[in-house]
């Protein structure tokens, strides 16, 4: 196994600059979005927020920062697989947007995210030419199947289902090349998504045949597990999960969900589980774990900032934000 000594050293140096619990409190205490941006100016994000002009464009700053983080990791590891695990989702997002836009016949260019592995322009061209052969294999196959699926059903949800399935199977393949921890990480992510999907389906009452389409294969728990429990009472689902590796998710999220069906705590518990897993990277001196952990930390940090900024802009009370705050990596 490669040790990535140089990369780990860089990551360890960058880890210190991640947004800490302490700084999160200060961000929360800021009276307005502008003030929040000012608090951020002493962090890594300072220069990015300087470029964007208005705090309303905070997403732009976040993406620019992520893009630079990805570049640093790629350069220092010499192995693009690390960031690919986190970047594929943007390719898939762009593909979703462009496919749907082509069905509606309108342009949605402002919601493309330019930090995927394939340049936005290239995907745009293939979608408008209806020729996906230029794309990397997994995107090409995904696009073909999504187009076929849409033509069959005319239901945009299937486009998402199909593309998400391709996304996670590609992420899993990539992770396998990086070793056991990366594989465990992606498999866990798939499980957590499936658990959430399962519970959301229960709540909104969609048929189980559609659940099969929505579930993602490749996790530790097989899709058949969820289908089997779909008609069962939630308690028995919770019980069988509590003897699996996801017992903490049951305690922190699902138990409460059974009472009030509130997505807030559940999604927080799911996210926290994955962050906790990634935290192993903090205690490892070198290797894959610290690098993946750091990338997850950055991903999580983007979520944190988004939550705080949207809440500050919309003047949402601090306790509402706190309810949704995920654990931080450092």
């Amino acid at each position, binding site marked *: 196994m490669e040790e990535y000594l140089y990369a780990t050293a860089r990551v360890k140096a960058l880890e210190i600059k991640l947004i800490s619990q302490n700084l999160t409190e200060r961000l929360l205490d800021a009276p307005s979005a502008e003030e929040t941006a000012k608090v951020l100016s002493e962090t890594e994000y300072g220069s990015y927020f300087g470029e964007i002009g208005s705090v309303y464009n905070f997403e732009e700053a976040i993406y620019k920062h992520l893009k630079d983080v990805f570049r640093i990791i790629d350069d220092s590891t010499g192995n693009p697989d690390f960031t690919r695990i986190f970047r594929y989702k943007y390719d898939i*997002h762009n593909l979703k*947007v462009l496919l*749907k836009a082509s069905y509606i016949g309108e342009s949605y260019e402002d919601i493309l995210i330019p930090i995927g592995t394939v340049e936005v322009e290239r995907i745009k061209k293939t979608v408008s030419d209806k020729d996906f052969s230029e794309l990397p294999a997994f995107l090409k196959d995904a696009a073909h199947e999504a187009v076929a699926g849409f033509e069959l059903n005319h*239901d*945009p*949800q299937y486009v998402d289902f199909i593309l*998400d399935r391709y996304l996670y199977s590609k992420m899993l393949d990539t992770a396998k090349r990086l070793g056991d921890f990366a594989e465990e990480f992606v498999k866990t992510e798939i499980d957590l998504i499936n658990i959430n999907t399962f519970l959301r389906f229960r709540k909104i009452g969609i048929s189980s045949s559609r659940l099969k389409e929505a579930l993602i294969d490749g996790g530790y728990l097989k899709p058949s597990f969820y289908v089997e429990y779909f008609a069962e009472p939630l308690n028995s689902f919770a019980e069988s999960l509590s003897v699996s590796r996801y017992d903490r998710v049951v305690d922190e999220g699902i138990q409460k969900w059974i009472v009030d069906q509130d997505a807030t705590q559940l999604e927080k518990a799911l996210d926290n589980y994955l962050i906790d897993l990634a935290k192993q990277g903090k205690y490892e001196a070198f290797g894959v774990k610290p690098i993946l952990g750091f990338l997850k930390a950055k991903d999580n940090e983007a979520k944190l900032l988004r939550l705080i900024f949207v*809440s500050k802009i919309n003047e*949402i009370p601090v306790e509402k*934000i706190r309810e949704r705050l995920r654990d931080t990596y450092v």
Partner: protein
Amino acid sequence: MKTNVNPTRMELTKLKKRLKVARRGHKLLKDKQDELIKKFVDLVKKNKELREKVEDELSSALRNFVMARAVMSKEIVEESLMYPVEKVDIDVETGNIMSVKVPKIKIHKKKKKASDNKYPYGFANTSGELDNAISILADILPDLLELAEIEKTCQLLADEIEKTRRRVNALEHIMIPELEETIKYISMKLDEAERANITRLMKVKEMVMEKSV
């Protein structure tokens, strides 16, 4: 104030006829106004209830929406919602309340495909908070349209009530008193002429009597 007319018997008959018509018109309009107001009050009550309900639900949908937006990026929220699953056609027909033309809105839900799905997005990168918002918004649409219908109806009725009230008032406070006064004036004038005539006749009679004595 009396109108400027010739104090003749013919004019008097004409005016009396007009007064009768005016009184009948007044009564009819007054009845219409009462009925309109009754309908209006009912509708306004219903309107208030519906509006409160719709506003409650809308604000909770929007709260959910903001929270969904807070846990998902702008791009993902927009991508999730860019292609709607449901299409709604609206027919507006006209109904009739006391000869006021009011709108009647009919909804035809057109689903792209026969399924129970109102969520146009996948579940992997979206949050359950978005489900809540979408579910409330989808359920609220019929209420929203009913509210639109009732609010417009109330507006139209209010216009009609105002117009009717102006007519009733014009009849009650101007037209009818005016007619009454004019009628009074003419009959007094006619009586006066009658009395003058009698006096003259009596005088003539007296003079004739004196001569003959």
